[in-house]
């Protein structure tokens, strides 16, 4: 803020006076909201139920250590999702009548797995498949829980990839082919790199969703952060542990969200620079 000409756009831009006005109006608005909440009749009950400091400090370390499982599930699932989804998107985009069954399958896959509630997929695979008691098939609930997330999120991410691939102008492919690249090479070196770069922000958006949905694996039994919060909440009849879980999930997603913002800004800058060249 040393240079008044470069003041933050969020705060209203320009001179110090508008910054001051912005600050005051912010204070008035949030102050009013806070006053209304704190002076409401039920506030003491709500405060006791959701913002109990003793409960917060008691549950924080337990939930933090349970969060490790969320991060593990997330990291493993993310790798498989990136690969599966790209494969599905490419299969769905294969041209020509020969590949019709492949396109049909890929389309059916995205339709089905985007349509089914994630909870059902998790229950069905996590409890249903092991109950068949087939030899050689893992019965681990963590395995099936993670696999369910991979299946569901691959369907979403495949559509993101497909949008990216469709957004690359056909002339790019035509130019690559005319230079002697095969269809596969054109896809690998020309289309997909451009497509992926364009869809990085929506991809990260889906991954923020995935980070939170790792909590669904708890339905099968493993104790992750949200379930740990639920355990403490049910034992003590207090909702504060959920607030702890929320704080931790936010702490997990904010770096990713800022990273996404940065990528979007960089992409915009790059495109503008390209346009001026």
């Amino acid at each position: 803020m040393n240079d008044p000409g470069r003041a933050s756009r969020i705060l209203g831009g320009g001179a110090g006076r508008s910054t001051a006005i912005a600050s005051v109006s912010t204070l008035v608005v949030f102050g009013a909201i806070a006053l209304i909440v704190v002076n409401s009749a039920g506030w003491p009950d709500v405060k006791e139920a959701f913002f109990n400091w003793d409960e917060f400090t008691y549950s924080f370390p337990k939930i933090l250590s349970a969060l490790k499982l969320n991060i593990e599930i997330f990291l493993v699932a993310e790798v498989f999702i990136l690969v599966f989804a790209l494969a599905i998107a490419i299969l769905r985009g294969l041209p020509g009548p020969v590949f019709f069954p492949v396109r049909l399958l890929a389309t059916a896959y995205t339709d089905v797995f985007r349509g089914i509630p994630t909870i059902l997929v998790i229950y069905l695979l996590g409890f249903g498949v092991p109950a068949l008691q087939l030899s050689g098939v893992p019965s681990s609930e963590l395995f099936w829980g993670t696999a369910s997330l991979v299946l569901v999120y691959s369907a979403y991410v495949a559509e993101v990839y497909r949008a990216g691939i469709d957004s690359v102008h056909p002339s790019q492919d035509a130019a690559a082919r005319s230079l002697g690249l095969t269809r596969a090479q054109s896809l690998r070196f020309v289309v997909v790199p451009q497509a992926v770069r364009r869809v990085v922000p929506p991809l990260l958006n889906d991954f923020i969703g995935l980070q939170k949905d790792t909590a669904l694996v708890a339905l099968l039994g493993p104790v992750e952060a949200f379930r740990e919060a639920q355990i403490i909440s049910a034992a003590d009849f207090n909702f504060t542990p959920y607030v702890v879980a929320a704080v931790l999930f936010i702490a997990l997603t904010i770096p990713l969200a800022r990273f996404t913002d940065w990528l979007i800004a960089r992409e915009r800058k790059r495109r503008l620079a390209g346009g001026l060249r």
Partner: protein
Amino acid sequence: MRRTPFSALLLASLAVLAASCGGSSSNTTTTTGSAQTASCSKATLELTTPGKLTIATDNPSFPPWFIGKKADSPWDPTTTPTKKGYEAGVAYAVAHKLGFTDQDVVWKVQQFTQLFKPGSKPYDFDINQVSYNPKRAKAVGFSNSYYDVEQAVVSYKGSKIANAKSLADLKDAKLGYQIGTTSGDAINDTIKPSQSANVYSDSNAVVAAIKAHQVDGVVVDFPTALYMSAVQVPNGVIVGRLPSTGGKQEHFGLVTSKGSSLVVCLNKALSELRADGTLNQLQQKWIAGGAPVLS
């Protein structure tokens, strides 16, 4: 420059608007009187619906606590009221003691989490195998015990703990329990297994996990263990009962909203039912069976 004061004005007026909205809706105070004397007649009770006794439980409610139309089937509280099962029996016995007829009893579905949400509650008391503990009693009202409960281990024939004879035999088992139950304390404090236990959202998931052999056994309260091993789990067995956690007798209490004046009357009714043998008869009728205590 010209734009900013205007938007500030807009925001300020929004804030005023929000303040006026909040003011009008924050007048409903719901404090239940505590200075009531213990005259427990139907007319003087503070009830959710005057003249009716509104009792809550979860949906579905399982035997032996509530029994539906068919033998061994769970009961759906949105259907015709059942008078079969231990908790159904206790609920109606308490209602009669307070002067209500069967027709005065209204059932309401409440999930476990809804019991301890802040604010007013849409029922007079809840009966759903809720164990008393001091922390919980800060958020809700509890009656005295209507059932002194023990925990038990359920497994299936052929599992590695099916023939366990002692707590030590359970050490290496993968166990599971339902969230919100004290079975978790029994596992962590009494059995202390080498692997951390799995936790499930509801009793259906507990049963599904043991059917899928993802756990060697599950810990549930003893009456539930009787039903689970006999009906829900194929080849189910009760491995044994567990000694009480920390030497303290665990009990189920009726749950009311915090500070409810009804608790005094519920306690009076329960102590009369205990004294005249009704509670004991209901237990004999609905919760029959035994299993060795593991030590």
